[in-house]
């Protein structure tokens, strides 16, 4: 046996030890995350709790991480004021602080790694954090993800203007930021999510004009629907949003089309999409944890036996990230309970499995991925081929399903004009990542938060396939869009820079062919590949 060699160009040994090390790192300071952090601290652990709120105003404009629909006041520009507001909006944060939890507000987690298949070179489990000015790494022993759920949103005529937003976006702007500018709302959907959103809006002094539901029946439980109706709010079933008209400040009305084709224009300044939530699993994707389509939990969700553990031994779930039952939220009590379970699991202590995810609200019809698809099918039938399905890359529904090349490539060739989604289906099952590469749908700066789910749903509808069978379009770090200068490792260790090479640094790889086997070969070796920096 030859002695074991060492490849100075390989990454092993080059990653620095993280700047900070904590026992338990909790991402997300909603009710579940705060409860997890508090319980872990009370259990004796050293805990860091990270939450990205207040989100940088530039990201709010990109509807990242939630669909805010540009319905916020200028107050969001003032970071100091927003920090106070976010802290005040969650009284439990103070309790957690007093219990010794280190709280980092306005800090996003853009990546997390625990090693595993194809990645054994890290010094240990590590998360990438950023406050928008700089990025840094924090090592952890266990990670609790309490990243919540976000809105599944749909395109219709006029959806790409201020005033069209998601239910979670509304909650964040009203409750967490106290910076919502809308007054008069139409809500899309009639499940628990939509009904509770209506009551939430009313309780906060907002006007709710109507709920719009494409299905013939109200989706949520009757008592809840009655409660909403009792306030004078109409629930228009069998109806769909046909056209949001607006001006410089965005939405001014929504035209609703009934099943019989009759149209009615409703004055409103905000259209809240409350059709379904989907778990925020992007960090699980980066971590390499198993996820799967779970039709009753809002879409792709972590694979978990008990609602708390994941396929990775040191990563745990708290709250809606484990699955949005029936496309809705768990509710604060269940979220707190799930946070406590996650803390016990993270500390290696016994915990009872969650039953919230096993039998979600068995008393009424549970909206599933089929319900999302019903919405998409109805919207696709409304003759809106020119509606943008991907706002960042300006891809229309028609262009998506024609698999049309982007406009900057000019008119399609004769061959290209013959190709569309149907011809691709002839080659194999629908694959969203493949369509993305060809059309650019989902490739923009919002990192597909506004279009990922609806593109999958549209492909499913066009292919006469269940949306449950469309593979997830992959998630990649950084899961928040961060400037090069912010993400950069300006303090790069010498171990990383001293042998940096353009490619693999195999000395013989770039020797010009004619010189291979001649005495000129040595002249080239180790130089043309870039060679060491010094």
């Amino acid at each position, binding site marked *: 046996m030859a002695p074991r060699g060492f490849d100075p160009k390989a990454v092993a040994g080059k990653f620095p030890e993280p700047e900070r090390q904590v026992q338990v790192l909790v991402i997300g300071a909603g009710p579940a995350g705060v409860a997890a952090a508090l319980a872990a601290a009370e259990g004796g652990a050293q805990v860091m709790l990270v939450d990205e709120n207040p989100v940088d105003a530039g990201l709010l404009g990109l509807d990242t991480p939630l669909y805010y629909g540009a319905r916020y006041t200028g107050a969001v520009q003032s970071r100091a004021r927003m920090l106070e507001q976010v802290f005040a909006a969650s009284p439990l944060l103070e309790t957690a602080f007093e219990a010794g939890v280190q709280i980092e507000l306005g800090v996003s987690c853009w990546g997390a790694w625990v090693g595993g298949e194809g990645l054994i070179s890290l010094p240990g489990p590590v998360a990438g954090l950023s406050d928008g000015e700089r990025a840094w790494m924090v090592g952890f022993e266990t990670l609790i993800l309490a990243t919540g759920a976000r809105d599944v949103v749909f395109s219709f005529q006029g959806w790409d203007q201020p005033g069209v937003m998601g239910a979670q976006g509304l909650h964040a702007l009203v409750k967490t930021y106290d910076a919502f500018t809308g007054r008069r709302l139409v809500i899309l959907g009639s499940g628990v999510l939509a009904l509770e959103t209506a009551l939430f809006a009313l309780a906060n002094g907002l006007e709710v004009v109507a709920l719009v539901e494409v299905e013939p029946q109200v989706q949520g439980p009757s008592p809840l629907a009655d409660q909403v109706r009792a306030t004078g709010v109409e629930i228009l079933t069998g109806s769909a949003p046909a056209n949001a008209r607006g001006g410089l400040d965005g939405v001014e009305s929504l035209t609703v089309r009934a099943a019989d084709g009759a149209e009615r224009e409703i004055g409103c300044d905000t259209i809240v999409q409350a059709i379904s939530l989907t778990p925020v699993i992007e960090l699980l994707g980066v971590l390499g944890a198993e996820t799967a389509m779970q039709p009753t939990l809002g879409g792709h969700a972590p694979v978990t036996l008990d609602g708390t553990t994941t396929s990775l031994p040191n990563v745990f779930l708290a709250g809606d990230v484990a699955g949005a039952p029936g496309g809705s939220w768990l509710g604060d009590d269940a979220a707190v309970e799930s946070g406590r379970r996650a803390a016990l699991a993270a500390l290696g202590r016994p915990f009872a499995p969650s039953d919230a995810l096993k039998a979600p609200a068995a008393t009424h019809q549970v909206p599933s991925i089929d319900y999302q698809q019903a919405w998409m099918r109805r919207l696709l039938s409304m003759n809106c081929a020119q509606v943008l399905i991907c706002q960042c890359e300006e891809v229309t529904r028609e262009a998506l399903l024609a698999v049309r090349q982007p406009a900057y490539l000019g008119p399609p060739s004769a061959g290209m004009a013959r190709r569309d989604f149907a011809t691709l289906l002839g080659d194999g099952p629908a694959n969203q990542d493949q369509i993305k590469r060809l059309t650019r749908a989902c490739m923009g700066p919002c990192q597909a938060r506004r279009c990922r789910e609806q593109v999958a749903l549209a492909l499913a509808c066009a292919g006469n396939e269940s949306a449950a069978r469309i593979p997830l379009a992959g998630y990649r770090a950084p899961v928040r869009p961060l*400037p090069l200068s912010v993400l950069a*490792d300006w303090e790069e260790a010498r171990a990383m820079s001293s042998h940096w090479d353009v*490619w*693999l640094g195999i000395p013989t790889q770039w020797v010009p062919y004619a010189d291979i086997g001649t005495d000129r070969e040595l002249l080239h070796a180790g130089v043309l590949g870039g060679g060491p920096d010094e």
Partner: protein
Amino acid sequence: MTDGAEVIVVGGGVTGLSTAWWLARSGIDVLVLDKGVIGWEASGRNGGGASHYHSPLFHEEQALWPQMDDLLGYSTEYRRERVIFATTEHHLRNYHQMADACRTLGYQVDDLAPDEVREMVPFAGDNVTGGIHLRFGGQANPQRTVQAYAWALQDLGGRILQHTPAMRILTAGGKVTGVETPRGVFACDHLVVAAGPQSGLLAAQVGADLPLAMARAEMIVTEPGPLMAIGGVDGNGLYGRQTLRGNLAYGGGPHEWVEVGQSGPRARPSTPLLRNLARRVAELLPGAAHLRVIRSWAGVVENTPDGRPVLDRLAEPDNLTVATMSGVGFGLSPATGRAVRDLVLEGRCSFANLEKLSIRRFAGMAADWREANGWLPTTHAQARADMRA
């Protein structure tokens, strides 16, 4: 036997697809088998560069790329020329040597003073030490190119079966007779193995020793910025380009050695290395440092012990041709496909000497060559111990 073709190509990456397309252009009935989706591995996850002066296929690469959109009938987003510039004297020396090598081959390269670099590359900053302007080469969109090959192949009657891994090469009487897959057996007169990381295990089934070590490499992508006149701009230890949409896509830096079985890479994680890439892009293009990074990706490439391709028709079975580009396959693919077509149909390449890319150079290679090179998956702790030793 369920089906078959005159030539079966195992591997729907750029090398395999280009080969199949060239064969179909010659009227050959060809079938491509891919374990998953075409171009899913390194073929769709690379920098898109097309200026490989070190390769015997270089001249053909340069001759073909400007014609590829027309030949294929689909856009590859190919754009001509390349600017490489440095922010250190060390890199500048390297780039000047690269320029000399290209000039020796008869290609025009202009040396650029710092001001000239800044004029051509509006994002460049005060830290430029100089650069070179390749009046040849260029870059294309890997993902669009993969699909262009596939569609062009289909337009000529060629077939592609996705989600159809080659499990076993069938032989009889010293000849390949077909390929066994989960969808049944496909018969062929000639087999091309262009299966990237899985090529070594497939070659081993017919007794051929194709030593390969697999590594993961990473790239980052920003949101779109204003379009530069030349998209092929790199340097500062990076390879990459500005896409026609305006995104900056760059890679480089250390790789991780990984194990890959016959079913292919099981994971392609991108890592915190994206911070080191971000730093180098921000240094190279300070005027673009405000652009937001929106994605990263990683690809797994196979590497031969000398880092050079194997393009060879075996002595036995003599109806099997091996094509691995040792991790540098995208840009050369138009030429590689033509060369492999020649090997399959004529037994030798009609336009380039490929003798030094023969599989025979690895005959008698020690079984533990990867360990001897340190080309094995290595933990942080092990590497730190090795560094100290």
